[in-house]
């Protein structure tokens, strides 16, 4: 534990081991991270799971095109009885329908869940991208400019943070989606996704701005910024070439932490009947319907619910693992 090689990048100083004058090569932060990650089995599993979900989500449209997934066809013969519940046990689970079928229509739940995964992941990823871009730019500008500019941006950050995100999402949904629908002249799916991306992205930037600003403030004192200044480097060059490489770590960590929150928020809003709605499959819209069948067809609620849980869990685990791996202080005992 006290080997020089195990100490974080902050002080790659040479450590005295009695007698040994072995070649102490300082490791780059990236190498340290990789080593830590490799030891952390749980995080590796989480990363695998997260990647699996992402790949599945990306493949879903292709699979649907080739008929392997079918979220839209009705199979009314598979449901029946009073209330049109799925025939067969566990909500109609069968070799063709791994998660059973939807009451009332007989649509394949597995296909719908996978298509929903696509929609949810697209929305969550793009939303976090918007937050990252906005937050990083504001954080860098705020941190480097200092003084009045910094004060102004900090107040703006506080202002945005005062608005309750969920409530604003709900309150703005009908208005903004209607506007987008008329402006783009499309049916509801794409406008509702754009709405979620923009509004979630907008209410997410303060976190990134705060973190980036903090990082920038501590980096500002370092010599290489001064050096760049004295060499005559323009502001933009400083911001982007010098600072950014040091910022990817917190950006990555917070991205993996915010992603699952976005996925969960979309699901919660869909559950309330706001945002992305049927017939577009998304975790929210599927659960909004399945909630009502909790007592009569629990499988319809459990399968998508558990899938959502696993997706969120894997991203959370990944985020935790990354944060531990990237944290310079983590090895200290």
């Amino acid at each position, binding site marked *: 534990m006290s080997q020089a090689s195990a100490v974080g990048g902050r002080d790659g100083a040479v450590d005295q081991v009695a007698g040994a004058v072995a070649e102490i090569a300082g490791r780059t932060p990236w190498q340290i991270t990789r080593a830590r990650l490799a030891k952390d089995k749980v995080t590796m599993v989480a990363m695998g799971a997260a990647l699996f979900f992402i790949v599945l989500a990306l493949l879903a449209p292709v699979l649907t095109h080739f008929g392997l997934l079918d979220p839209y066809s009705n199979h009314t013969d598979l449901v029946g009885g009073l209330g049109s519940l799925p025939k067969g046990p566990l909500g109609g689970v069968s070799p063709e329908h791994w998660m059973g079928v939807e009451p009332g229509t007989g649509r394949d739940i597995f296909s719908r869940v996978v298509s929903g995964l696509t929609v949810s992941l697209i929305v969550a990823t793009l939303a976090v991208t918007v937050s990252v871009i906005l937050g990083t730019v504001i954080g860098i500008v705020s941190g480097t400019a200092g003084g009045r500019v910094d004060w102004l941006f900090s107040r703006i950050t506080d202002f945005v943070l005062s608005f309750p995100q969920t409530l604003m999402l709900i309150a703005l949904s009908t208005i903004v989606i209607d506007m987008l629908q008329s402006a783009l002249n499309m049916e509801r799916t794409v406008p509702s996704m754009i709405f979620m991306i923009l509004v979630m992205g907008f209410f997410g930037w303060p976190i990134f701005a705060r973190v980036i600003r903090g990082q920038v403030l501590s980096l500002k004192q370092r010599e290489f910024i001064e050096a760049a200044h004295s060499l005559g480097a323009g502001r933009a060059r400083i911001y982007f070439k010098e600072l950014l490489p040091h910022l990817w770590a917190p950006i990555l960590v917070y991205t993996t932490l915010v992603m699952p929150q976005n996925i969960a928020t979309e699901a*919660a809003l869909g559950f309330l009947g706001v945002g992305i709605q049927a017939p577009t499959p998304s975790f929210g819209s599927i659960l909004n319907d399945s909630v009502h069948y909790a007592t009569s067809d629990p499988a319809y609620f459990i399968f998508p619910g558990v899938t959502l849980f696993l997706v969120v869990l894997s991203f959370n685990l990944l985020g935790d693992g990354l944060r531990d791996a990237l944290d310079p202080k983590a090895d200290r005992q």
Partner: protein
Amino acid sequence: MFYYILRRLASAAAMIVLITATTFAIFFASPIDPARYTCGKNCTPTILEGNRKALGYDQPATVQYVKFISGLFVGRDFPDNEQLRTEHPEQIVHCPAPCLGYSANQHRTINEMVAEGWPISLSVAIGAFTLWMLIGVGGGLIAALNKGRWPDRTIVGSALIGFSLPTFFVGLVLLTFPAIKWGWVPIPNFVPFFENPWEWARNLILPWITLAFFFAASYVRLTRAYMIETMSEDYIRTARAKGVATTAVVMRHGLRAALTPIVTAAGLDLGGLLGGAIITESVFSLHGLGYLAVRSVTNMDLPTIVAMVMIVATFIVIANLIVDVAYSFIDPRVKLVS
């Protein structure tokens, strides 16, 4: 010190004004006609116009905003019609200060609706807060002190699971099984505290657990992280070296330092919750402020939507203010900076 508080108060007030103005601007600048949703079936253009005039929607947004602000201080009358006031005063609804507006959709003043929903949201928030602080901080403490060993792993694992389960999922499972299917607790139906404290608690225990699930998980992680950081500080090592008993070390030195950021976060979370736990209230059909907010959106009840957003944002600002001022008392470094 005094000036610091004064400055924070002024800043908070300014923030609230800004929030109200922005909310107003967003919603009244929207293309949706608020008068349209005050008129039921058989709505003719004449009735629509009449409603629009009576509720003041035909005036420019700035005028409406001024009327709203003045209503907060002196109260308002709906419909704001001189003729009606003299001829049929019994038909005028008087909304006393602070008047948040009138919902033609629900045929009542927003004050009434908020007054009804507020005790419920407060009850839910306070109970959940107590529960999650006890479990969260307690759990985090145990985990931190047993870092690496099995209590730590179990607690961290459970916290992660709790953190990843969607609130509505937890709520629904709790509603379906313990309440509906097994009958361990009644299906939540709000009983005011002063009417029957025992029933009040019995009915709210499920919503409390639902909310606490997520927050407790969050606070376990938070507490554990801060405690670990604090416990590795040099002064802790010194105290131990000096021979101070472990309990004293942990509680008096360790926890107290770690508690400050935890309490800060808790204050902010509580502030946000006072505006209504939207998901929980929806799942359990509790008619608090969160439920009111959702319903006003479904009904396109613009005045209520605006009022709700403002109320919740105001709570958050005030929570921020309280936390900042309290922090300045606890943490001596703040005084120096300001």
